[in-house]
C-alpha cells in the first residue's frame, strides 16, 4: 500500500465521524438512487469495519465531508473524464472529500440484469475510491481493492490485507475488527470466485 505524499488523513478526533452525500442532479441513469445509496452504504461499511471511523449519509451535499457525484467529460476540476471505459472515477486526497464517477460508464450492481459488455461494477469502484478519500494511494497487489485497474463485468468488493494494513496505519484498528474475520471473508470470496 502507499499513502499520498505528505500522508494526508482526516485529522479529527477518533472515533472519526464523516458525513457523505450525493449530488442529486448528478447521478447515473443506469441505477436508481436507492441502488446507488445501498451500494455506497455497503462500500463505506467495508472500511468502517476495520478502522474506528463511521460514515453517516446526509442530504446536505454542501456541508457533507464526502461529496459523491457522477459527472461527464470536463466537469470543472481539471481532470475531465474520457467517455466509456478508460478512466472510471477519481477522488481527491484528504481532507478534500470529492469522489467523482464518470457518468458515461454503464454502472451496474447486478451483472445478471445488466448485460452490457462494458458494464462496470459500482461497488468495486466505490470501495476503491473510498480508500483514496481516506488517504490510500494505489497498491501493486493485484488482489487489493486499491489496485488501479478493473476489468468490465468483474467485481472486487472486499478489502485485502494490504488495504487493511494501509488504512489501519493511518487511523488505527476498529476494536471489533478481527484478522480471522477478514481472512474468512477473503477465503469465502476466493471460494466463490
Amino acid at each position, binding site marked *: 500500500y502507499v499513502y499520498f*505524499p505528505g500522508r494526508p488523513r482526516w485529522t479529527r478526533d477518533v472515533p472519526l465521524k464523516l458525513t457523505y452525500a450525493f449530488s442529486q442532479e448528478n447521478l447515473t441513469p443506469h441505477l436508481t438512487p436507492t441502488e446507488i445509496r445501498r451500494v455506497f452504504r455497503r462500500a463505506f461499511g467495508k472500511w468502517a469495519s476495520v478502522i474506528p471511523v463511521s460514515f453517516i449519509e446526509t442530504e446536505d451535499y454542501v456541508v457533507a465531508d464526502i461529496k459523491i457525484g457522477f459527472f461527464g467529460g470536463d466537469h470543472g476540476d481539471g*481532470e475531465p473524464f474520457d467517455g466509456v471505459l478508460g478512466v472510471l472515477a477519481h477522488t481527491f486526497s484528504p*481532507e478534500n472529500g470529492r469522489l467523482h464517477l464518470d457518468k458515461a460508464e454503464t454502472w451496474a450492481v447486478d451483472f445478471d440484469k445488466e448485460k452490457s459488455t462494458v458494464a462496470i461494477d459500482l461497488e468495486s469502484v466505490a470501495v476503491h475510491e473510498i480508500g483514496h478519500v481516506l488517504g490510500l494511494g494505489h497498491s501493486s*497487489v493485484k488482489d487489493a481493492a486499491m489496485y*488501479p*485497474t478493473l476489468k468490465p463485468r468483474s467485481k472486487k468488493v472486499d478489502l485485502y490485507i494490504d488495504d487493511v494494513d494501509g488504512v489501519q496505519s493511518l487511523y488505527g484498528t476498529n476494536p471489533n475488527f478481527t484478522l480471522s474475520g477478514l481472512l474468512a471473508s477473503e477465503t469465502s470470496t476466493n471460494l466463490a470466485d
Partner: protein
Amino acid sequence: RNPSQFTINPSPDVVNISEIKRHLHRFGYLPRNNNDSDAVSFEQALSRYQKNLGLPITGKPDSDTLSHILLPRCGFPDDVEPKTTAFHTGQK
C-alpha cells in the same frame, strides 16, 4: 475512447508508443515535456509502471503491459509526486 479498443486481450498493435507515453504521463510516470529522444526515461517510466502494477519488470511494452494499459482504471495517478496538483489539494 470507444469501447472497441478495450477488448480483454487487445492485440499489441492497437497501442502505439505515443499512446503509451500519454498513458504514462497521465498517471504520473513521465513529465509532460518528455521528448522523443529521452528513451532512457521512457524505459524507466515503463519499468516503474510495471512495478506499480505488479507486472514483470522488463522496461519493454510487452503484451502483459499493453493489456494493462488498455484496462479501465481509476483516474488517480499511481506515482503521485508532491508537485502533482489536481489530485493533491489536501485541505478542503
